[in-house]
């Protein structure tokens, strides 16, 4: 899932200082699961802002809401009307960056501010701890590396690792960071496929990643009409 972290309250307050009716909008999907922007966090941010404005003797109304997903039209379809009816001057999205983008397009004239920092695609390795495991690079090579991604989990994203900086399973950049290639070697040893690392992986085609420009995925059955409108990813 997408992992995010809440921005400090003071930073959020700085975004909305000039507004008098502010909607704090949570997201019921990834941001909820990673405890960054669900219903509970909406309450926390709203309460924090109320206290903060109150201290400065500013009269500000903070509204709260949380939608199932901020990144799909059906879940935010009512939002423009609601914002208009209630005279909302600004929205703080506690969804990931996708949510902020999508709301910004949906709401046209109302500013949308990010309430979280969107970090990465990761897994909850223990309660409250998430680890980056996928870089979304558009051409999965996990079949070659024992299911552990060198792009996301090696600090240098090298394909023929480990580099000389691997030490006791840790990366040279920081003893807190696991060496992705040490994990790959361990895993492939267990699978009995370590010898496959003898193959030299050639320079890869990064055009499938963000390096190739903003990407689009078109499902041929679900959106046949969209094919040909832009570059379709296979």
């Amino acid at each position: 899932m997408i992992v995010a972290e809440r921005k400090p309250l003071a930073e959020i307050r700085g975004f909305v200082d000039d507004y008098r009716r502010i909607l704090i909008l949570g997201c019921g999907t990834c941001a909820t699961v990673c405890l960054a922007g669900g219903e509970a966090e909406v309450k926390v941010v709203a309460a924090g802002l109320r206290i903060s404005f109150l201290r400065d003797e500013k009269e500000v109304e903070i509204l709260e809401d949380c939608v199932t997903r901020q990144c799909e039209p059906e879940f935010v379809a009512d939002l423009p009307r609601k914002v208009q009816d209630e005279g909302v001057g600004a929205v703080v999205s506690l969804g990931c960056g996708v949510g902020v983008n999508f709301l910004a397009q949906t709401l046209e004239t109302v500013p949308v501010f990010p309430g979280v920092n969107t970090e990465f695609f990761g897994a909850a390795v223990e309660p409250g701890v998430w680890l980056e495991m996928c870089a979304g690079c558009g051409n999965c090579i996990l079949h070659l590396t024992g299911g552990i991604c060198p792009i996301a989990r090696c600090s240098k994203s090298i394909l023929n690792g480990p580099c000389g900086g691997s030490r006791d399973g840790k990366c040279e950049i920081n003893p807190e960071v696991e060496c992705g290639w040490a994990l790959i070697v361990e895993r492939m040893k267990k699978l009995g496929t370590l010898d496959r690392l003898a193959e030299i992986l050639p320079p890869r085609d990064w055009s499938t990643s963000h390096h190739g420009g903003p990407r689009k995925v078109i499902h041929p059955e679900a959106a046949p009409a969209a094919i040909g409108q832009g570059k379709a990813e296979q």
Partner: protein
Amino acid sequence: MKSGSNLERVLRAGHFAVTVEIGPPMDCNASVVTEKARMLRGIADAFNITDNQTAVVRMSSIASCVLIMEEGLEPVMQMTCRDRNRLAIQSDILGACALGIRNCLCIAGDHQSFGAAGRLKGHPGAKNVYDVDSIQLVSILEGLRDKGCQQGGDPVEMRPPLLIGAAWTPLGDPIEIRPLRLKKKVEAGADFIQTQGVYDVARFAHQMELVRNMGLHERTAILAGIIVPRSLAMLKYMNSSVAGVSVPDSLMDRMAEAKESAGKDKKQARRNQEEEGARIAVELIQQAREVPGVKGVHIQAIEWEGSVPEIVDTAGLLPRPTFPQEGEGDDFDGEDPGS
């Protein structure tokens, strides 16, 4: 000959090769490089010029290479994958060859978070590149030189005559992957290998045995890395913080004794440690030379290049072999560099 470089001639002739590292300055002062070059002239077959080593901005490797060439030294240009994508790498390689550089060492490069291990600020906020890794870089150079082909597939009319080098960390973790990774570098096209600094010669010899069993020592020239220890603190730091470097207690004890024997005289303690460090370096060179399959040494005296001439001399490696200039001698076999 692949490159016609002096280093290649030395290795081909079967001499025990010596390379020495030169670190460029953190400014544009050419005289720093030329003075180091003058100090080191004649004591090695080729001189590595580091490429923003420990992720600190320094005078470029290519420019520094040219500066030492003007002083009559042969450079090994180091090139990291951290700072350049495949376009920049290939254009710099072509440019370096046009300027007469004939040896290149392909390395991943320390991560930008390093900043000289915290002693300098560095640029930890920089974006790294790592478009290709060091093994892929070796194969790109091999493609330019032997196939006349850029990585993207476009032809290279005049092929760059380069001796291609790679680094190897024989005692890095996970240790069982290290010989295999060396094999990949050899198969990608590495003509020579310069290893991470070796202090534990027994463990290095064991890794070399595995390498010999794979026949790799016949396919590439392995130069054992010698990092001249200058102080007990440096040895401790390298043992604890430099990946792939382990310092045996016996060496640590010797350095500690050298330091303590000076009592409270700090200057004397420093002199004692430097003398002991130089002695250790000489012994390491001699021990590495005894390891079957080792074809030379690569000496690094970090910010202490002045110690190297005496170390090389004491180790019995002087004078260095010389060859007639290309075109006037009988050593050059006249092969097309691309063949």
